[in-house]
């Protein structure tokens, strides 16, 4: 692959792929928000219709999708901070790659315990309690 010319932060490698991931996660979260406002609006219809739809969120497969949602939001949030630093911190563009690596570490460190907590109930329901 030809080397990207110097100074093109958003062309090739870390700069570009983080931009691609930022777009994809952003669009995904936007579509979820649409559905989420509609499901929450059911509290204005009746407690039972709200509870019924919220039960869907507690089912194993949707629970797994929620971990995906949290992952998308977490990446988008951390990468957004990186973008702000690139734009406003004078050394931001210089350290954009290093910031992405720090971001990935933070992403994993935060997501793993979050996913564990989120999936614990589902795992216990499916496979029985560990204790």
């Amino acid at each position, binding site marked *: 692959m030809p080397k990207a010319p110097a100074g093109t932060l958003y062309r090739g490698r870390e700069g570009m792929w983080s931009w691609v991931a930022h*777009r994809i996660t*952003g*669009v995904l*979260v*936007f579509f979820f*928000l*649409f559905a989420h*406002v*509609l499901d*929450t*609006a059911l*509290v*204005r219809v*009746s*407690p*039972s219709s*709200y*509870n019924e739809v*919220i039960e869907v*969120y*507690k089912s194993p497969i949707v*629970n797994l999708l*929620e971990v995906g949602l*949290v992952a998308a*939001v*977490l990446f988008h*949030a951390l990468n*957004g*901070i990186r*973008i*702000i630093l690139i*734009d*406003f911190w004078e050394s931001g563009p210089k350290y954009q790659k290093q910031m992405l690596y720090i971001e990935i570490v933070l992403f994993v460190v935060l997501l793993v315990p*979050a996913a564990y*907590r*989120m999936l614990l*109930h589902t795992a216990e329901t499916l496979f029985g309690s560990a204790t």
Partner: protein
Amino acid sequence: MATTATPADRSAPELVAPRSPQRRTKPGAAKVRSNFELYAWVFMRISGLLLFFLVLGHLFIMNILDGGVQRVNFGFVAGRWASPFWRMWDLIMLLLAELHGTNGLRTVINDYAERAQTRFWLKMLLYTSAFLVVTLGTLVIFTFDPDL
């Protein structure tokens, strides 16, 4: 739309100095350059920073803190929205997230939809959905009735 040609319109085009900024309006028309894209860019960064705390806090409370989503039901929502703090949190989060997301999708449409008609209708669809989400969400937060 062509205006009636007068002799003045047929004069030679004005020669501008090299490297002078590109004029986006038709010569003669009132200059209406707006800074909308700049404000949108700034808004993305400010709202993004606020949403970092609002949304991650929301996800933490709803999905991770004691029992996570398993404890969420009508009663749980009623308990939270009894407090003006959480109502304001949710309202600000709703407005910022929807505007942030709408502007993000506007950028995506501008980038990938090439036909003028497609761009127009996709953006109309986007703005209609944004209006619906903001209106419905705001209404629900303000008119919530725990005794329903």
